[in-house]
C-alpha cells in the first residue's frame, strides 16, 4: 500500500473544499485534494450539458446512495462529483446572504459574519442585474406578477481579467446561463478557487473515493486517509470495468468537504465499535434540511419567446426573504431537467404514449417552456427529524461500506408552504399566458441539502466549533454545507464559500477577516 504526506488533505474540491484549500495553499501549506469525481479545467464552462448531467448525477450512477422513496419518487442527491463540485452545474446562482440567514440557532450574527460575506461577494463576483435589464422572458413574468420580480443574484465576471495565470472572459449577457456558459464567465469554485489553489501548488487528485479516516485508538486524532484511486472515468456498476487501487495519505491536518450527504457518511465509516468519528454529540448525520418544492411546468401560448434565454428571477416584495415561507422563483431549465421533469410528473402509461410524435411535439415546446420551482424554507429550530445515516438493514455499496440511508419529510408547515407556493406560481404563469390545459405539477422534491454535521459552541449538541474544527478530533475540520446549524433561506453556496474563508482564518490563526 502506497503512502504519501501533505500538510493538509481536503476531501472534496467543491465550494467549501476548494475555497478553503486555495487560502491554505496561498499561505504556504502543501494541500492535496481527494476528489471523488473528474478533474476539470477552467474552460469547462459546461457548454456540453452531458458532462454536467453525468457528473451531477454521478453519485446515483455509482449506486453509492440508497434513496428513501419519498412520495413514491426518488429525489436527487444534488451532488456535483467533480472538481468544483455542485457549483459547476446550472446557472451560477449565488444568492446573497442576508441578515435573515443568521437568526438563531446560527451561532453568530450577520454583522459578525459580514466581513466574510463581503469577501465572498467580491471574490465570487456576485451581482444582480437591474430589473430593467432583465430578459424578455423575465419581463413577461414580471408583467404577469404585477411587478416585483428581480434577477436572482449570480456569480459571473462583468469585466475580463487575468488572475493566477488564468484568463477570465466577461459575461456577454446572452442569458443562456442554464445551458452552460459559453464564455467561461461564470464564477464558481472551479473557476475562482481552484485556479488559485493550483497556482499555489495545491494538488488535485481526481477519481479518489475516500473510504475511511484512520485515527488513533481514542479517535482524537486523524492519522491518515484510506482512499480508492479509481479508473479515470469512474465506473458504472455492473460493467465490471472498474479498476481501483487502495492508497493511504497522511497529513498534519484533515478537512472533510464532501458535502452534507457524504461528509457524515465518511465520519460513520471512520468510526470504531459502531461509534462514528467526531460524534460524541450524536449529531453526525442528523438534522438534514433543505428546500422543499413542487415544480410546475407550463407552456406559454405565444411564439415570441425563448424561455431558456432568461434570467433566473424571483419575486421580491416580501417573498425574497421567505417572509411568507417561500422564495418564488421562475427558472430556466436545461433539456435534461425538462425531460426528466416530464417523466417525473407523468404516469407510466402516459409516458409510453409519448413515444413517437408526441415526443417531437414535446421537444418543440422547450423554447416556450415556463417553469417554477418555488423554494420553501426549512421550518425548524435547529433540529429536524431528517437524516442521512448508515443503512439500518446493513446494505452496503460495492466497496462494502454501509450505504447512506436518507430520510426526508417536510413537516406540516413546510408542506403547507409547498402548496401555497405552487398555487402562487401557477397564478402568475397563467397570467403570463401559460396554456391552462398544459400545466403539470411535479411531486415534492428537495434541493440544497445542508445540515448533518451542525456547528455550535456546545459540544453536546454540535459536531464542529465555530471555526469548523470538530469538537472531538484535534486535527479534523469540516468545510461544507453540513455545518449549517439551522434553517437556511436562499441558495446555500454563498454561505459555504463564506464559511470556508472563516475556517481558513481559523486554521491559520489569522486575524479576521482574510485580507
Amino acid at each position: 500500500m502506497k503512502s504519501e504526506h501533505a500538510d493538509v488533505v481536503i476531501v472534496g474540491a467543491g465550494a467549501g473544499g476548494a475555497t478553503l484549500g486555495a487560502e491554505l495553499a496561498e499561505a504556504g501549506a502543501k494541500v492535496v485534494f481527494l476528489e471523488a469525481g473528474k478533474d476539470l479545467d477552467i474552460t469547462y464552462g459546461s457548454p456540453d450539458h452531458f458532462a454536467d448531467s453525468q457528473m451531477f448525477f454521478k453519485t446515483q450512477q455509482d449506486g453509492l446512495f440508497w434513496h428513501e422513496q419519498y412520495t413514491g419518487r426518488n429525489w436527487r442527491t444534488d451532488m456535483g462529483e467533480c472538481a468544483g463540485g455542485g457549483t459547476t452545474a446550472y446557472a451560477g446562482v449565488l444568492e446573497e446572504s442576508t441578515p435573515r440567514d443568521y437568526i438563531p440557532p446560527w451561532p453568530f450574527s450577520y454583522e459578525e459574519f459580514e466581513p466574510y460575506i463581503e469577501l465572498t461577494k467580491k471574490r465570487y463576483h456576485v451581482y444582480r442585474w437591474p430589473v430593467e435589464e432583465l430578459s424578455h422572458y423575465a419581463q413577461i413574468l414580471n408583467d404577469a406578477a404585477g411587478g416585483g420580480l428581480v434577477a436572482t443574484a449570480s456569480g459571473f465576471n462583468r469585466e475580463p481579467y487575468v488572475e493566477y495565470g488564468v484568463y477570465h472572459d466577461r459575461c456577454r449577457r446572452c442569458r443562456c446561463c442554464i445551458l452552460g456558459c459559453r464564455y467561461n464567465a461564470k464564477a464558481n469554485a472551479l473557476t475562482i478557487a481552484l485556479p488559485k489553489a493550483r497556482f499555489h501548488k495545491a494538488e488535485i487528485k481526481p477519481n479518489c473515493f475516500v473510504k475511511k479516516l484512520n485515527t488513533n485508538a481514542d479517535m482524537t486524532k486523524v492519522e491518515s486517509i484510506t482512499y480508492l484511486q479509481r479508473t479515470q472515468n469512474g465506473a458504472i456498476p455492473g460493467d465490471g470495468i472498474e479498476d481501483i487501487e487502495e492508497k493511504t495519505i497522511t497529513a498534519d491536518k484533515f478537512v472533510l468537504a464532501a458535502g452534507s450527504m457524504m461528509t457524515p457518511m465518511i465520519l460513520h465509516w471512520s468510526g470504531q465499535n459502531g461509534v462514528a468519528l467526531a460524534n460524541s454529540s450524536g449529531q453526525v448525520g442528523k438534522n438534514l434540511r433543505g428546500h422543499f418544492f413542487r415544480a410546475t411546468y407550463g407552456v406559454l401560448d405565444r411564439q415570441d419567446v425563448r424561455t431558456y434565454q432568461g434570467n433566473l428571477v424571483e419575486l421580491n416584495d416580501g417573498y425574497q426573504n421567505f417572509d411568507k415561507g417561500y422564495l418564488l422563483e421562475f427558472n430556466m431549465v436545461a433539456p435534461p431537467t425538462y425531460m426528466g421533469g416530464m417523466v417525473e410528473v407523468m404516469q407510466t402509461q402516459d409516458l409510453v404514449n409519448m413515444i413517437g410524435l408526441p415526443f417531437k411535439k414535446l421537444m418543440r415546446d422547450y423554447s416556450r417552456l415556463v417553469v417554477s420551482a418555488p423554494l420553501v424554507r426549512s421550518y425548524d429550530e435547529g433540529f429536524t427529524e431528517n437524516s442521512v445515516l448508515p443503512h439500518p438493514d446493513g446494505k452496503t455499496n460495492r466497496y462494502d461500506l454501509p450505504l447512506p440511508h436518507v430520510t426526508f419529510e417536510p413537516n406540516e408547515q413546510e408542506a403547507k408552504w409547498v402548496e401555497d407556493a405552487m398555487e402562487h406560481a401557477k397564478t402568475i404563469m397563467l397570467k403570463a399566458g401559460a396554456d391552462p390545459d398544459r400545466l403539470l405539477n411535479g411531486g415534492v422534491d428537495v434541493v440544497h441539502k445542508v445540515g448533518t454535521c451542525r456547528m455550535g459552541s456546545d459540544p453536546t449538541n454540535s459536531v464542529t466549533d465555530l471555526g469548523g474544527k470538530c469538537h472531538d478530533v484535534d486535527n479534523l475540520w469540516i468545510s461544507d454545507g453540513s455545518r449549517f446549524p439551522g434553517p437556511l433561506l436562499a441558495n446555500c453556496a454563498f454561505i459555504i464559500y463564506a464559511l470556508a474563508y472563516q475556517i481558513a482564518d481559523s486554521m491559520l490563526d489569522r486575524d479576521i477577516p482574510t485580507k
Partner: protein
Amino acid sequence: MNRREFVIVSSAAFFGAMMGLPGERNGFAMASEAVQRLKSNPLGLDGPDPLPEITAAVNVLVPADPDIPGDFKGSDYNGDRVVAYVLGDMGQASAVGFLNKYAQETASKDFIDCNDDERLGTIQAIVLARAELEGDMRDLLTGLLTMSMIGTFENNSSEENEVLFESMGWYDPNDPAGTFRIPNEGYVDAQIFPVTLKKGLLK
C-alpha cells in the same frame, strides 16, 4: 449546445428516465459518446448500413409531424444510419432480435412484418416491461430511442432545413447571419442572442 446536442441530450434524459435508469444513466453515456463521434463525423455515414428493422424502428420513433410542413421522418435525417453507426453490426443484430421478441409477443409476427401501429405497440411494450429487462437490454433500448433522434433537425439540405425551421418558428430566412429568429424584438435584449444555427453544416 447546438441543436443536435440539444436533441440528443433531451432524448437521452427522457428515454433514460422513462426506462427507469438511475440518473438517466447509460442514456447519457451513449448520448455523450454519440456526440463525440458525430463531432468528427456528422453524418455517421461510414458505419454499417442500417438493418431494415432499425430503419423501421427509427421511423416509428421519429415520424413526420403532419402539422409541420416540410417535416421529415427519422430516416430522412439519416437517423437510422446514425443508430447503425453507434450500435455497430453486433449491436444492430442484438437490437433486431430484441424487437422481434417483443413483436412476436404483441403482434405474433416479426417486427419488420408489423405495420406502424404494431411497431409502436412493440416498442411501448418493451418500455412497459422495463422492470423485467436485463440491464444491457434497457441500455440498448435507451440507446436506440436516443440515437433515433440524432440529426432530426440538421441532416438535411439547407433548403429543407429552412422550411422546417421556419415552420417551427426557429429560424428567420431573412436574417443574413443565419441565426435563430430573434425572439425579443422590441425588448432591451433583442440584439443580444444570435445563436448560430449551423446552417448548411453538412454542405
